[in-house]
């Protein structure tokens, strides 16, 4: 049998067409292939969508609908955070839930132990997640493809099993498999606890807007440019003095920071965290799948994926009431396979070309 050999040998010099652009312009990293106008248009769109979304609770008072919107937007946020590194680096992490877990646990423990408001606890949890991501990412990013994916699962599973079987560590009550509860404080802005759904909704819309803006910034920053160059041809990028490890780690840390804050939001919204769910592989898979099916490496792809897939799961559950065990996961799997085979750039790609054909794109739709 052969040993692992660089896949590049098979077809030496042909990068994917969409990646030809980036590495072929290495001499001018400051100038980006797209004009600035497009970028600010995207930013305007994010602002517009955020404003429109913020207004929703003024119209919709139905608490379940709002609850469902929060869940969908939570997944959209988590998928966007995942996409921030994986979508642009082209690596598949199936361990991102470990960052959500550390953020969620930190938020709860800082609140119960030190009385620290979740408004501060969430970013602190995010920072801890970023710290963990550097420890995990530093050795791991040297690995590629499936090696990287398997290592991320292994790290996350190690942490999950450890948390599930640890009741206290250094005096900190992790409470093992039983999980942690956020004590009720009633309506309290400081404790990030509300009786209604609308405040939670506004928080997650704000978080999502932040994550989308960060992704937009990435696309137009040197960091994003380098990441794409690394993705297109790692060795060429390296020979131009771009240090893959450094830029990938920066992106991973930002992604983990956002994911950690998402874990904190989960803890506040559901008022309960346990390792099986928040550090579990299911959550990691959801984040990756929504991003990939929607369109990884784009600003809005993960949002699209979540907006389509999260309600799909909800509706199949609601309508079938569990009469066909596991049917919605089968549907999920089939959509995933079809997307990988026929829409490798995600659902966002055909949607754009369809709209272009309908003439809805206006000028320059061919770009």
């Amino acid at each position, binding site marked *: 049998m052969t040993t692992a050999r660089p896949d590049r040998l098979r077809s030496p010099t042909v990068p994917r067409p969409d990646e030809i652009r980036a590495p072929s312009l290495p001499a001018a990293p400051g100038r980006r292939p797209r004009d600035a106008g497009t970028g600010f248009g995207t930013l305007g769109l994010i602002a517009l969508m955020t404003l429109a979304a913020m207004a929703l609770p003024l119209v919709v008072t139905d608490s*379940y609908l709002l609850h469902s919107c929060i869940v969908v937007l939570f997944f959209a946020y988590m998928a966007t955070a995942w996409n921030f590194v994986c979508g642009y680096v082209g690596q598949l992490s199936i361990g991102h839930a470990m960052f959500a877990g550390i953020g969620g646990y930190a938020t709860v423990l800082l609140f119960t132990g030190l009385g620290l408001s979740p408004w501060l606890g969430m970013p602190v949890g995010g920072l801890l997640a970023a710290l963990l991501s550097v420890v995990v990412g530093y050795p791991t990013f040297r690995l590629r493809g499936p090696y990287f994916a398997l290592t991320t699962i292994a790290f996350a599973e190690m942490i999950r*099993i450890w948390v599930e*079987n640890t009741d206290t560590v250094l005096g900190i009550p992790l409470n093992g498999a039983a999980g942690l509860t956020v004590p009720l404080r009633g309506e309290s802005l400081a404790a990030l606890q509300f009786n209604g759904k609308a405040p939670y909704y506004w928080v997650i819309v704000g978080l999502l807007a932040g994550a989308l803006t960060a992704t937009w910034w990435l696309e137009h920053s040197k960091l994003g440019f380098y990441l794409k160059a690394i993705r297109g041809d790692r060795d060429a990028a390296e020979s131009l003095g771009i240090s893959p490890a450094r830029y990938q780690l920066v992106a991973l840390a930002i992604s983990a920071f956002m994911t950690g804050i998402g874990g904190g939001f989960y803890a506040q919204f559901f008022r309960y965290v346990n390792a099986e769910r928040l550090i579990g592989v299911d959550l990691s898979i959801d984040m990756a799948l929504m991003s990939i099916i929607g369109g990884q490496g784009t600003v809005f792809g993960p949002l*699209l994926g979540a907006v389509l897939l999260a309600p799909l799961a909800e509706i199949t559950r609601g309508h079938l*009431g*569990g009469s066909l*065990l596991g049917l919605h996961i089968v549907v999920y799997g089939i959509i995933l396979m079809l997307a990988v085979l026929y829409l490798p750039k995600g659902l966002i790609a055909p949607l754009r070309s369809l709209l*272009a054909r309908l003439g*809805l794109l206006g000028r320059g739709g061919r770009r």
Partner: protein
Amino acid sequence: MTTSFSRRVALRGALALSAAAFATTAQVQAQSQTEISVGWVLPLSGGSAAIGQQARTGVQIAVDQINAAGGIKALNGAKLKLVFADSQSKPDIGVSETERLIQRENVAVMSGAFNSAVTFPATEVAERYKTPWIVMGAVKDEITERNFKYVFRINNKATYDAREQLDAIDLLKKETGQGPKTLAMFYEGSDWGRSHAANVRKLAKERGYTLVLDEAAPPNQVDFSAQLLKIRAAKPDALIAAFYTPDHLLLSRQMLEQQLNLPYGVHSVGGGTEDPSFYKAISPKAVAYYFVQEDRQVDALQGERLPEFADVEAKFKAQLGYDMSAYGAQGFAVMYVIKDALERARSAERQVLRDAVAATDITAGPALYAGYQRIKFDEQGQNTFAHGAISQNLNGQRRTVWPAESRSPDTKPAWPVPAFGARS
């Protein structure tokens, strides 16, 4: 500007699509006056799906019986309507489904959710919406220790389970003058197994037993050889085990293969050993002389058998292919507790119904199918008359040995248990 415009349109379309999808869900719930909706959150897919299915079957049979017998008489024969939701054993999905059932399906009362990790946060949602919730299966102590007004539990707390196991050992010790001095614990490493182990650990110390092995295993093992060696090396007098069905099956099979003898037997706290599909899959030799902490008395003696009981047992077996399980029985019993409360409340209004449930005091009838003599809740919503039974597997049948008053005269506990080599 161009690409972003396309994205905006795309997104708007997607949002509209999903909004439309939600709207259809909303229209489904045409609430009729002659129907009272009861919401159930159960694990219907994922690792605990078998239990969810058993509970659902018991619940459905009870509702069919109640509706066939004329529904809720105090409400002009209103029929009960069941709305099931799948939690997938995940807390957040359980919470979301609880929201849906309460908000959308407009249920009068909720029940479920077997997994403590789901029940704990989901009951908090019910409390917030002032919707009564009757807990099924979940044993986490804190569920009925939060001063909630709308949460009730018919079955045992986790601490009761541990106490009963040691009570049974103490009883047999008292009766025969001999018994174990050292115990080993071997349990699954998730919430249930670990919290049970913590309770046993505390009680065993109080009662003067020495724990010679205290070992957790992650779920879904494929080999227990290493752990069985450890038990063999620790030489305990008895083993306390807490495993779900697949792991318990592996454990029991391997103990038989390895002829691992424990003088005072294996004391299983249920889980796998209460699951009828477990007994379908295992050789009777592997579970001979097992002590099982049962959530309901399997060889129930009390009173005459009600016709409802024969009916539910026959239908259950016809649907699932094996005999009634503890979770099927608990689901069945919950529905009759709800019926009782509805009859007294004369209303399906949640607040009124909550007060009726709180005032429950049942001493006869199908609501006692799970094996209790009485159902009455304390101010925390816990049924203080809840208890299990300890059975021993004698000649292929689980016969109650504890409490002594429930032991039938022809049940002679095997104590100490015969070694593998000495069994016929």
